[in-house]
């Protein structure tokens, strides 16, 4: 048994331990209500992120960068709503996600988006936010804005693929890891 597989089993156990969340999710309207929150959060996240990223890329140049950046707390609010509802899905059906390759890609794209944003604030963030009306963002900031938009498209697409890709239960030994963990369930 590989160490990744052991880690996956521990993750499933950890998420499954929140049994009251699981019970709520399996009530009649629990799952659709949480999905609605997930999609409303997604719209808030993307709708406020797109103006900020597009301003970095040069759209709406009249807006000072610091002004456009005032949408970012709303991006974080949208992310918080999707993250909380997303973790609730995980607590209710952990094995549907932890062993799902589409979910692995979704987490990867979120990690890219997060690392990209963190790098922005740790490097050229301060300098970029000082740019006023009609100013042009540094080329590096533009590249980061493009990476951000691409990563979020990746998050949405892999999120939609999640429900079409049902992996095996992944409880075999390492010799069967491809058959049990990667190939779709028969």
């Amino acid at each position, binding site marked *: 048994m590989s160490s990744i597989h052991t880690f996956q089993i521990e993750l499933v156990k950890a998420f499954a331990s929140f049994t009251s969340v699981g019970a709520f999710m399996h009530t009649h309207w629990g*799952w*659709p209500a949480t*999905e*609605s929150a997930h*999609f*409303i959060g*997604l*719209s*808030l*996240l*993307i*709708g*406020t992120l*797109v*103006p900020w990223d*597009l301003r970095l890329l040069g*759209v*709406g140049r*009249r*807006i*000072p960068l*610091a*002004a*456009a950046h*005032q*949408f970012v707390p*709303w991006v974080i609010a949208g992310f918080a709503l999707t993250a909380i509802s997303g973790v609730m899905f995980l607590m209710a059906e952990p094995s549907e996600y932890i062993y799902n390759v589409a979910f692995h890609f979704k987490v990867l794209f979120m990690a890219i988006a997060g690392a990209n944003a963190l790098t922005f604030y740790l490097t050229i963030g301060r300098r970029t936010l000082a740019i006023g009306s009609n100013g042009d963002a540094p080329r590096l900031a533009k590249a980061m804005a493009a990476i951000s938009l691409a990563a979020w*498209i990746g998050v*949405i*697409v892999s*999120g*939609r*693929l999640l429900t*079409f890709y049902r992996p095996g239960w992944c409880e075999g030994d390492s010799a069967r890891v491809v058959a049990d963990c990667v190939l779709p369930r028969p």
Partner: protein
Amino acid sequence: MRESPSFFAFPLMLSLHAIGMALAAGINAALALRLLGAARAIDVADLQRFFPMMWIGFWMNALSGVVLLIAYPTKGLTNPVFYLKLTLIAMAMVCSRALTRRMFAVGHAGGRAPLERRLAIASLICWSSAIIAGRLLAYTYTHILAGM
């Protein structure tokens, strides 16, 4: 498309529908939030620059929505929630259009604030309700295909 040999045809349409939703509902929500006090440093009229993305999202959804309906016509057309969703989108677009006409007009002085605030709240409620109705479609259908 339902019987398409491509494993990805249906999820691709759903992905386009989710991205379009986020752009259409999200950018309209950004305008509504601005009118309700968010990101005050942005001149409201300058938000017009981002509205082509809202329209791209809207048409992405109209087209992918038609394709999804063609794939499962009975599933949507026999479900009252489907008509509720279309009505909510129409109401949301009326609110959003009323707002953009006022806010992006040349020489807009920022007057009539109470009406604009009410329209912004109505816009947020309609878009959220349209998203909820869309999600409920997956749970409330009675016939997935004719005869089933």
